[in-house]
Structures are given as C-alpha cells and as structure tokens.
C-alpha cells in the first residue's frame, strides 16, 4: 500500500450535548489519492476531519500525521493546520471578511509568508478557481457558487498537502460542479491528497480512486469504488444506492451480454463504449 499521510487510531469523540459523533474509529489515509467519503448526514464526516487538522481533540485514541503522533503543542498544531486544509460546506461560515481579496489572504498571512509571496499566491489561486474577476466585489454581492469557489481559493492559498472539502458541489449548477471536480483533479496532480464528502454517488464513483463509507461515527467500508459499491450490505446500511454505471454493467454481465474480460466502466463514456 502507498504511503500513509494521516492516521486515526481508535478515536472517540462526543459533543457537549452527549451525541457521540465518532465511535472507536480507525482509518489510514493514503497519500496522493482522490478519496471520497460517503455517509448519512450526521455520520461524522466533518467531525472526523476537524480531528485531522487539530481543531477537535479525540477523547480517546490518537491521531498520527506522517507517522508522528499529534501532541497538540502550538508549533505542531500550526504545522498541521497549514498542511491539512478544510473547505466548509457553508461558505458563509468561512468567509469572514467582506472583501474577497482579504479573505483569501487570511490563510497565507497566518503562515507568516512575505507580502509579495502572498500577493503572488493569491493571484495564482484566484485565477485557478476563476474568482480573480470577483476580487473587487464585496462578499455579500456574490452568488452561492462564487462564494464556494472563493472559500476553496482561501484554502488552496495555504498550499495544503491534504485538502478536505465538505460537499463541494452541493447546491451548485452542474457546470460549476464539474469545474470544481476538474480543479480538484489538477490539484491532485501535484502529489496532494484530495478528500471530498458528497451525497452524489455517481459523481463520486467516477471521480474517486478510494472510497470510505461512514455510518454512525464509524467507517463501515473502505476500498476502491468498484468493490465498495458492489457490497449490497454496506450500501443498504449507509442508505446509499448503487451508481447507475455500475448497475447497468452488472446487469449486462448477469445477462451474459458482454465478455467478462472487459474493464469495469468508470463513467458515462466508458459504458457508452461498451454498449
């Protein structure tokens, strides 16, 4: 197996009102992959990621970053938060400044880079996310999708090694959600790990090369999408459905319409070729 960048060992976490968000969970996050996390609302996806960048501290168990135990000392926390970026689901909770430019500058500024380097970086990520033309606009004049892209730019600007995006495409037009997934592919090219939580099974199936299924604060299944989505038990337990591409493929196999030697299709184009 490839190099492990983040690891959780038997962690447990409850919120102050007593809800158990994470329940004896262990997971290894491989480096440089495109990972998707699926699960119900309230399955603990966001909570898990707040553990990985040191915002939450597990009540039991431990977190490892690059095989090193996280000890929650100030310097290490800073290092952790620089390298593990989180893009939150609601951009209004993340964009604190009324100026788009200021908001993107916040992360790199906290890293203590020089001003000129920061300005260059801001321009680079804002052009990447297609938000450079919005830099003069106040945050409250942006649409939901634009705010989301600004929020992504604000995290990319810190050059994290791992970026976790909480439902990056929820509530976006299909074109924009494609753009965002492409952007994440580009980001992944540079050996970085991209983790996405999503409810869109078809999107996840064709995009991800590793899938985690969460349920009630635990990881009930992990592996390559072709395997995970074929387990009827897992899919039912987590209230998911089979991706349509896989469903059609399995149907064709069952009816002996195609040779068994054909590679499992990943997306619309693949299955069209088979048909």
């Amino acid at each position: 197996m490839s190099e492990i960048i983040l690891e959780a060992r038997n962690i447990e976490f409850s919120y102050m009102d007593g809800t158990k968000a994470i329940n004896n969970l262990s997971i290894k996050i491989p480096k440089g992959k495109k990972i998707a996390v699926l699960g119900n609302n309230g399955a603990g996806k966001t909570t898990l990621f707040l553990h990985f960048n040191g915002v939450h501290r597990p009540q039991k168990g431990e977190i490892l970053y690059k095989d090193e135990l996280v000890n929650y000392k100030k310097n290490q926390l800073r290092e952790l938060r620089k390298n593990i970026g989180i893009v939150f689901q609601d951009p209004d909770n993340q964009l604190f400044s009324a100026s788009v430019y200021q908001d993107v500058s916040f992360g790199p500024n906290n890293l203590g880079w020089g001003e000129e380097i920061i300005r260059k970086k801001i321009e680079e990520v804002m052009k990447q996310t297609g938000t450079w033309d919005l830099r003069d606009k106040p945050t409250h004049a942006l649409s939901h999708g634009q705010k989301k892209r600004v929020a992504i730019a604000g995290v990319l600007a810190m050059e994290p090694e791992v970026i976790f995006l909480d439902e990056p495409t929820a509530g976006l037009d299909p074109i924009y959600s494609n753009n965002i997934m492409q952007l994440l592919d580009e980001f992944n090219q540079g050996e970085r790990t991209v983790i996405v939580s999503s409810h869109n099974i078809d999107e996840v199936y064709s995009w991800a090369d590793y899938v985690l299924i969460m349920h009630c604060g635990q990881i009930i299944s992990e592996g390559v999408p072709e395997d995970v989505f074929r387990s009827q038990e897992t899919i039912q337990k987590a209230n998911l459905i089979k991706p349509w591409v896989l469903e059609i493929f399995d149907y064709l196999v069952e009816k002996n319409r195609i040779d068994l030697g054909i590679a499992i299709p990943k997306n619309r184009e693949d299955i069209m070729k088979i048909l």
Partner: protein
Amino acid sequence: MFYVDQYVYSNQMRKIHPLEKFFFSIITMIIGLVVNNPVINVLIIILMLGVLIFWAKIPVFVVFKMVMIPAGFLVLGVITIAVTFANDTNEMVLFIPIGGYYLGFTVQSMFLALSTLLRSLSSVSCLFFLALTTPMLDIIYILQSFRTPAIITELMLLIYRFIFIFMETAFNIYTAQSSRWGYSNFRGSINSFGILFANLWGKSFMKSQELFISLLSRGYEKELKVINQKYSFSFGSFFIFVIIDIFILIAA
C-alpha cells in the same frame, strides 16, 4: 441602506486612494467650520454634492435622499435657535404674545439659525462625500493606517460582514413564515415575530461557533491578519482635491 451600499461599491471614485478622499473630506469640513461665513458653507455644499453627482456618478435622487435625512433633523433643531423669548417686541420680526412676554424671531436669531443650519449641512455633505465614495473596508483601512487598535477594526470588519448574513437569515425565516400564513393576522404576526427573533439568536450563536472553527482551521491565532489590495495614489485626483480646497479658501 443596502442599496446605498451597492452605489458605494460601484461609484466612479472608488479606485481613488482612501486617504486622499479622507483628507479631502476632513480638510474641507474644517474649512467650513472655521470660516464663519454662510456663503462659503453653501459653496462647500454645492461643490461636495456636485462632486458626488458628476464625478462619483451617484444618482441625484440617492444623494438628495441621503441629505434629506439629516436635513430634516437639522431644520427641527435650528428652529429652537431661531425662536427667542423676551418681554418686549424690540427687533422682533414676527411674534406672538404669551402673558406679558413675547415669543418670536429676530433678524439676528434667524441669521444665527440659518448659519448654523448651513454649517451643519456643509459638514454633513463632507461626511457623505466620504461615506458614498469609500466602501466600509476602505474606511477600516483608513482607521488601520492611523494605528487604531486592532480590536476595533476587527470588530468593524466582522460586524459589517455579519449584518448581511443576519439580514439574509432574518429574511429567509420571514419568507418561510409568511408562506405558511405566519403574518395573516395581528395575533399570528406577534407570535411569528417572536419565533423569528428567538431563532435569530440561536442561529447567530451557531454561526459564530462555526466561523470560529473555520478560522481555527485556517490557522487563526488571536488576530485576523489580512492584507488589502494595493491602493494606488493618483496625482490627478489629488491635484483636483487641492484645487477645490484652495478655491474655497480664496473665496473665503
């Protein structure tokens, strides 16, 4: 209030360095206050509103609406200066007798009231010049460049941002309530408004918690460190500002 904010962001003088606009506004205001001459005050009002309408290209009705708000209060205020109370009708232009005394206007009191009104209006128009050409963030930048404590400027930044989120949330709750007949009668309206208000508190608290978490995960440590876009200083606008002030001084 919110559409005024839009005009501020789209005005033609937005790109001018905030400090240039700030000093122009303040110096002109000081001239208007120090030189005790109503004609100069009228000149300042005309120049300031003229700059707003013809240079910043803010629609005339917006400018006048803005000026009318304080003007209403000022007129009411200066009436009390114009009215005098005496036991004879000497010098009084208009008066009504009350018991053995007289309530009325004298030429001096009316002049004093008028000059006070014009002085206030000229100061107000200088402030409106700043308020309508300089977005809130640039005003925060001005305060920062005068070494205002970070706690004040950070609070201003967050409050300004959250006014809009707060309004949006309130509006969404209102829409959801009225689409289910929440405001169809008086009793219902009172009840719905109570629920709206209570929910706003809860939601604001949650929002602030979530914002704090998201700031933490971007490395927040006690201070909102940000950088602004670079403002460019332009000699053109600076030159025009100086000429306007010199013109006012010569006229004085």
